[in-house]
Structure formats: C-alpha cells, structure tokens
C-alpha cells in the first residue's frame, strides 16, 4: 500500500498551540469534568467530576451500561458538547477558551469521531463522505480525492468507493466512517460503541481495524461501549457508572481479536 502524505492545510489552531506551548504527557486531560442536563424540573448529572488522563498512543476503553454518561463524556472530549463545569484539554489546548468556530476546528483537525450508527451522509458516496471533512478543511479537490481514495483503501474499501451508504453493509459503512475520521489526520479517534450495531464477526473485524490503526499509526483511541472484546485489545479499561469512574484496570493489550 502506498502511503500518501496527509495533505496539510493551514490549521487555525496551530497559533494557539504555539502560544500556549503546553507540554504534557497526556494527549487528553480533564479536570473535575461535569455535565448536567436540565430535564424539566429534574437535573440529570450525566458526567460528575471526571478526572481523566489519556496518554499518547493509548487504546483506552471506557465501559458502562447505557445511561452511564460514557457517550456524553466522549462528546465533551471531542468538543462536540460543552461541560457545565471543569475543563478538557486536547493536546494541551483548553477547550473552554475556544469559541464556536475554533471548537469546530478541533473536531475537524484534532479528533475523529466514529459512531455506533455510522452517521454517514446518505446522499454521498463512500468517497464523498470521506472527502467531506477534507472539503471543510479546504483541501484542494485533487488532493482530497486522492487522500479519500487512499484512506478507503486502507480500511479495505478500495473497490466500494462509489457506493452510497444504503448500498453498503453495516461493517462497510463503519469502515467508511473510520476512514472519514482519519481524513484530516487527527491524532485522536473517539469511538462511541463502534461495534454496537454490527454482528459478532464484523464487530471483531472493526475492533481489529481500530487496534491496527492504533498500533501502526500511533493514533490515540478512546472507545466507549460495552463490547467485552474491546477489553482484550485495550491498553486500559475504565468502568463508568452514573457519570463517574468506578474502576480502572489494565486491558488485555492484545493486537488481534478472535
């Protein structure tokens, strides 16, 4: 497989990084992170005082039942949602200091999202879906096309590029979503139950792909879910309950899954 160099466009966040020159061992860090929803008169504490440090290149799995706040946490880490209290640092950058546009830039260039329901644009082909974030980043058309093709080949969908999501299987759609998350070469991938909507075999393949990307590209992964197989490849496993961490252990650290 030929490795195409990721296309670099001007990163509006770079100046901020240089200015802050924050050096940390942790690629993601949170301090006393809280997220409270108002559901009518009831306050729902989705995330309560989470302190988290994620090392560069780590494959971290957060386990929890549905409603444990793990998805909300993931959204907070990926600048998709804003905390009620506490701070999130992504690659040293304090997200609370960023405005709407800069947060969009964080999502565009610093983190990649993979979702349980794939969340592909239904009217765009696989190729078009992967090109989308590249277009948002104003990558020249030819480069974007090449980069998307290369990413789709890397996730094993080289031949299915011109199909729209409804013509692809669940596993294939998730591969497209993974390729899309890699588009602007982020160092962090946040995955929300990536196998939750896949059969056992396909789920295993996706976990394998994520782990492989983690191992070969040095990408940091934060994966939330309740698929026990995730723990076999994880470097570290955190269990979450009612918006807070309840336990932490070393993961299986295996490179392949059965």
């Amino acid at each position, binding site marked *: 497989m030929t490795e195409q160099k990721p296309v670099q466009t001007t990163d509006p966040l770079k100046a901020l990084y240089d200015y802050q020159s924050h050096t940390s061992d942790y690629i993601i860090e949170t301090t006393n992170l809280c997220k409270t929803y108002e559901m009518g008169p009831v306050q729902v504490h989705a995330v309560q005082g989470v302190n988290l440090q994620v090392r560069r290149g780590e494959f971290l799995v957060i386990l929890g039942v549905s409603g444990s706040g793990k998805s909300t946490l993931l*959204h907070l880490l*990926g600048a*998709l*949602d804003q905390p009620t209290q506490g701070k999130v640092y992504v690659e040293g950058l304090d997200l609370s200091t960023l405005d*709407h*546009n800069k947060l*969009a*830039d964080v*999502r*565009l*260039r610093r983190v990649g*999202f993979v*979702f349980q329901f794939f*969340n*592909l*644009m*239904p*009217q*765009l082909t696989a190729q*078009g879906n992967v090109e*989308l*974030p590249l*277009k*948002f*980043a*104003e990558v020249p*058309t030819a480069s974007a096309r090449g980069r998307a093709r290369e990413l789709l080949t890397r996730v094993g969908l080289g031949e299915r590029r011109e199909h729209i999501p409804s013509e692809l299987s669940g596993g294939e759609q998730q591969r497209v979503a993974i390729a*899309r*998350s890699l*588009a*602007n070469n982020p160092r962090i991938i946040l995955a929300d139950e990536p196998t939750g909507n896949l059969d056992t075999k396909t789920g295993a393949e996706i976990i394998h792909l994520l782990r492989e990307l983690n191992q070969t590209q040095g990408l940091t992964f934060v994966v939330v879910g309740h698929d026990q197989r995730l723990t076999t490849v994880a470097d570290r496993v955190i269990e979450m309950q009612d918006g807070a961490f309840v336990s932490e252990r070393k993961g299986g650290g295996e490179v392949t899954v059965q």
Partner: protein
Amino acid sequence: MKFRNILGLSWANMRRRKTRTALTTLGIVVGIMAVVSIAALSGGFEAQITDQLMQGLDMDILTVMPGGGILGGGGLTSLNLNDTALIQNVTGVEATLPYSQTGTSVYNETGGTLDTRLVGLNFTDLEAVYGHKLQFAEGEYPGIGVNDSCMIGYLDDPIADVGDNITTEILVRVGMSFSFVNVSFIVSGVLDEAGQSGMLPLDRSVFVPLDTYQDLFNSENIDMILAKIDDPTQADAIADEIRDAFEDQVLVIVPSSIIDTVMSVFDIMEIFLLAIASIALLVAGISILNIMLVSVMERTREIGIMKAVGAKDRTILSQFLSEAVLLGVIGGAIGIITGWGLAYGMGLMLPLLFSGNFASGFTGSDGGGFGGFSGSSSFTLTPVLPIETIFIAIGFAILISVIFALYPARKAAKLDPVKALRYE
C-alpha cells in the same frame, strides 16, 4: 469550505428530492414568469407607442395654443396673427405657421363627397415649416392674394384635380344665429402623401389662404401657431422662452413632453401590474420558507453529522443559502424564458383582440389627435426585454429565495450537534 464544494453539496441535496425541488422551483418560475411577461409586454407596448409618436410628431415643431395661465386658470382665450411676431422673436425659432381649422365636408363637381378638415394658413408659412415634407402630385400653391383657390392634401382616391371646383359647406355664426354657407374653391394644387406630421395633418386636408378662412368665419382668431425650431434638443428651453414672451398665458406643447406624458401613464400602469405579479413571488418565497423549514427538520441528523466532522456554523448556513440561491437561479432562468414565451404569445394574441377598437382609438382621422397612427391592420406587439430586466429578474428571484431561506438556514446553523445527532 470552498464555495464550489458548497454548491456541489447543495446540488446533490436538491437532486435527492427532485419532486420537491421541482415544485419549489415552480413557485419561483411562476412568479418570475408573471413579472417578466408583464415587463416585456409593457416594454413592447411602450416601444410601440414611442415609435408611433416619434413618427407622428415632428420633434422640431412646437405647438403654441391659447390657454395656460397659473394653475390652468386664466390665460389667453385666443391667439391672433400679431402673436406670431412674439414667437418669431424668440431665439431658436426658425419659422412660424399660424393656422385655424375646422371639420367639414367637401363636394366635387360630380357629387363625390369627402369628410375632411378645412385649414386656413399662409402657404409661405407652410412652405417654411413643412416644405421638406411637401411634394406636389400636380399643380402648385395658390398664388399670393388669390382668395378663391385651395390646395388638397393627399388622398388615396383624389376627389378633384387641378382646375376643378370643390364646394364646402361651413357653419357660420352671424350675430346670434347660425347658418350653413356653401363656398367654392378652385383647386390649384394636389399634394403627394406627406405621412404623419404632428399636430397639423397634411394628408386628407383641404388648405385655403388664412385671410379667406378668417373672412369666412368672420374672425381674427387663429387656433394654433406652430413654431419650427433649429435644435430639437433645446425644445424645452425654447418653449420656456415662448411662455415667458406671453407671460405664461399660452400653452406650449413640446413633442417629447407628449411622449413623456404618455409614457408616465404607461409606467404607472406597469408598476401597478408588476406589484400584482410580485405577489406571486411573495407566495413563492413563503413556500421556500416552508419547504426549507421541513428540510432543516428532516436533515437535522445530517446537520449534526456535518458539525461532528468539523463543519462550522457558517458552513451549514451557506449550505442552505446556496440551495436557495440555486433555486432562485434555476427558477429565475426558467421563469425568464417562459415569461418571454408568454409575452411573445400574448403579443401575437393581443392585437387580434384589440385590432377593432384599440388602434382606431388612436387614429384620429378628424381635426385633433396626434395626427393619427398608422393603420390598425399592421398593428403587432413585439415584447421588449432589456438585458437589465433579465438581470433584475434573476436578482429578484435570488433575493426572494435567500431572504426566505435565511431563517431556516440560521436555524440549521444554530442546531446543537449532540441533539442533532440523536434526532430520529
């Protein structure tokens, strides 16, 4: 995100819902079609009328009539020959032609009859003002001092030849009573066709010396004085000077002002019609608003996805606005083409409907009027659509689309990505 890419995505979205896109576009099409066809038809109408007036009016001839005065009150009730000198003195006036006229019937020796107008004027004045238009079919002007000769304007079927006698019956007032008097003239000349000639129709008229005319009617008064000017572009200034010379007690008609007056009536009519047609555009705008709101709701999840992978608020906003622009451009373009087609079709139909009364209404064959328009049989209406109108129409289509898309687009841009992603 680059504009081209935004447009590409918009196009993909519009293609995805072809029927809805087509129906939304249809609203714009109908609105623009109505506006364009009305603009094109009235444009054609204006061009037609202007053209006819320009032909019928000599731009270098001003008409001085009794009347005027402040706020239309007062003013002279009549003019006489001495007034000619006042006009002649104004700089820029080359020649003057005072005349009087009346509608009458003329009989020839064999009993043939013609409804016409009897015009009294001095033939030297006529030559000075209209000489370039006059050609004799036969004969010549009546000699100076000869008071029993006349000249006949062009007729398709001449009523008399040079040397023939013609008789006219005129109503004369003597004291308190009126009586018909028969007067005979010897024809000294017959004119060739002169075409349209503004206030004083040369064709179909019978001309007699002014002295004779005034004797017949026992009056020193003259109806009008035509003033030929050297520079038509100075018409308004010269007209002002003539008014000044008469202390504003006369009416001076500038040919271009007649056109302006007629045009201003058409403009008011056009604006009124366009205002009505614009309602169709407003309705189209509201349907865009409606469709876009539905579309934003349906695409909530997609908006969430776009935001999750890094789209900024303004990218979403421009996404929806560019769809509106595309709707406007496509609807506007189709609307202009169909509007033109409609105007063209109606241009062919209208003259058929109006040929009977419309055209003849302008063809004043007797006395007054503007000298009459050309025959009603040749009346056609070619719509006129200037390039500015096309751009304005497209611009308007886009403007309406964008204005009504602003609210839905903003709504889409402000969606909370987390909620949008959860939207089913």
